């Protein structure tokens, strides 16, 4: 009897420790999420304005001749898979992996992969994919890795090594909504940009362009691609932290539940012990009396 009471106490203590850790992890995730969210929101303004502008310019110029806009015959497909570095964030990484696998399975052309996030590298290796390069997850707008990734994707496509770049990542809409999405990154489509902005649709406006629209577009497109990629990288990490927050919050709640149950068992066991001891005393006394 006494042994089981000690066991229960030990178990409770262990769960209390785990609860402390999950709570701390939740708080860390919350803080990180806030920071990344701020960065994402800040650059979202720029992204939206640039998208709107691109849609305008693309609408205005009749003959657009830029490699980023030309659809080539697809002989090789590049996939940029963006996920997290670590686990303990629920199904977050697995969902991204599943989405990527689904896309790759639907391709008839050979596929190459660039991974961001250590987990994604591990998944890709497990699937036996051809990984061109892999990076750790990026959480800050000023990390040099962002520029490396942008550079790699650009030369990947510009050199003609791949004819289409798809990106699989987790878009951050809100704390509870961060869907995994699979989108075409290159060639770019300004029409899709126009749809993505909250406008009702591009209103045809006769702009004066300086320099001419085609030249302007050639300057804007690389910028747009850079912003899109940077935003994808950061927004995924925001989603990852949100997923971790939810997971750790649930874990803390579960620990609370277990602690409540265990505390009840401990109390019951203690009561039983006392009752047994009392019974012993009473029966002992009775025996002496009679």
């Amino acid at each position, binding site marked *: 009897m006494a042994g089981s009471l000690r066991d229960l106490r030990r178990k409770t203590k262990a769960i209390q420790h785990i609860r402390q850790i999950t709570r701390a992890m939740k708080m860390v995730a919350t803080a990180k999420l806030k920071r990344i969210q701020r960065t994402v929101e800040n650059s979202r303004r720029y992204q939206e304005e640039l998208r709107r502008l691109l849609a305008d310019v693309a609408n205005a110029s009749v003959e657009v001749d830029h490699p980023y806009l030309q659809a080539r015959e697809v002989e090789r497909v590049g996939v940029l898979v963006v996920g997290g570095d670590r686990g303990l964030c629920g199904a977050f990484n697995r969902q991204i992996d599943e989405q990527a696998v689904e896309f790759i399975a639907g391709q008839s052309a050979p596929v190459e992969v660039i991974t961001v996030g250590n987990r994604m590298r591990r998944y890709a290796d497990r699937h036996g994919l051809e990984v061109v390069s892999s990076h750790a997850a990026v959480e800050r707008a000023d990390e040099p890795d962002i520029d490396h990734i942008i550079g790699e994707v650009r030369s990947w496509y510009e050199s003609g090594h791949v004819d289409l770049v798809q990106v699989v990542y987790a878009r951050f809409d809100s704390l509870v909504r961060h869907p995994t999405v699979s989108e075409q990154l290159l060639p770019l489509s300004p029409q899709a940009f126009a749809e993505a902005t909250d406008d009702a649709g591009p209103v045809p406006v006769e702009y004066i362009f*300086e320099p001419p*629209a085609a030249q302007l577009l050639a*300057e804007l497109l690389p910028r747009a691609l850079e912003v899109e990629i940077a935003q994808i990288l950061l927004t995924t990490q925001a989603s990852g932290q949100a997923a971790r927050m939810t997971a750790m919050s649930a874990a803390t709640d579960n620990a609370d539940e277990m602690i409540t149950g265990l505390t009840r068992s401990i109390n019951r066991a203690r009561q039983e012990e006392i009752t047994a001891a009392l019974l012993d005393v009473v029966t002992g006394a009775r025996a002496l009396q009679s």
Partner: protein
Amino acid sequence: MASAPAFITKIVTRNEELFADEVVSVVAPGQEGCFGVKANHAPFVSALGIGELRITTPDNQTRYFAIAGGVAKVQGNVLVVLADTGERTLDIDVARAEESAERARARLFGAGLEEQVDLTRAEVALTRALNRLRIARHGR
């Protein structure tokens, strides 16, 4: 002075929104020369070079921003400036700008002939640093 009609101006960089308010006039560093914008300007898109962007507010104050590259769009009495890099006058780090001007100068003029120097890049860096310094000096 009679108040001139105002219009909205937004200056946005990749990392932050520098300015968003009503203004009376803006002079911006276009790639092919400076251009001015007042209310009811015709729809206009221009690439930006390196230089200063001057804003006159409705209460007749002047504010300066250091801009290096980007694009500006005027449409429907809204001017949107998408700057590659941009700083408010007060945010300019004078010491850092001086340092980078010095570095760029050294690269431009100090390097021997046998050394491979990316002259264009050094020149751009120098222009950028000098621009920052100039604005920091007269903008305060």
